[in-house]
């Protein structure tokens, strides 16, 4: 596709279950970002990939959160033992190099609801 694709678009899960969120960046984009937007809040930085490596994981809220990227393409954000405070829209963005210098394109997000 032409843009950043995220799946699923909506996910409702029970507290304590694990979830996987997927991001397909724009082809050729080496930089990939994950953000979280909780209700009424801004975009909270989670993790940044340059290629398949993540130079900065400092935004991951707890060890229940992990992310990986393979083939300098698809990225998966995994949340283990979900809690209600994990409910948010999870946004993925990609850019040609770093979003600092070139425009970052965002996907539409995955709305996660933990019940």
């Amino acid at each position, binding site marked *: 596709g032409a843009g950043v694709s995220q799946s699923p678009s909506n996910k409702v899960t029970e507290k304590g279950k694990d979830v996987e969120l997927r991001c397909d960046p724009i082809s050729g984009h080496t930089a990939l970002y994950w953000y979280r937007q909780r209700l009424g809040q801004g975009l909270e930085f989670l993790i940044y990939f340059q290629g398949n490596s993540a130079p900065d994981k400092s935004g991951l809220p707890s060890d229940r959160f992990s992310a990986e990227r393979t083939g300098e393409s698809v990225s998966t954000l995994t949340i283990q033992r979900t809690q209600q405070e994990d409910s948010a829209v999870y946004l993925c963005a990609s850019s040609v190099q770093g979003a600092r210098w070139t425009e970052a*394109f965002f996907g539409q997000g995955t709305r996660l609801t933990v019940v």
Partner: protein
Amino acid sequence: DQQVKQNSPSLSVQEGRISILNCDYTNSMFDYFLWYKKYPAEGPTFLISISSIKDKNEDGRFTVFLNKSAKHLSLHIVPSQPGDSAVYFCAASAQDDKIIFGKGTRLHILP
């Protein structure tokens, strides 16, 4: 600790007038600043950016001003149009390429 602050959650402006959205930052290492616009149920889209070596950048109806000594930037939209109604996010980055966003300001353009 919020490094990028947008202290106005919302702003209403008459169509045709100037919209001014403000942003303050605390990290003196930030040297690149961006504005993103977001419509409901869509991801944010890039609007305009400015490097710390400049104090102004203009693109059509949009101008961003940077005051480094005050650690303050603003986005001016003139003239404001109905399609400008959206949430505007201010963002900043340092050498580490991490982009830090503010909480956003919801802009309402009134007819």
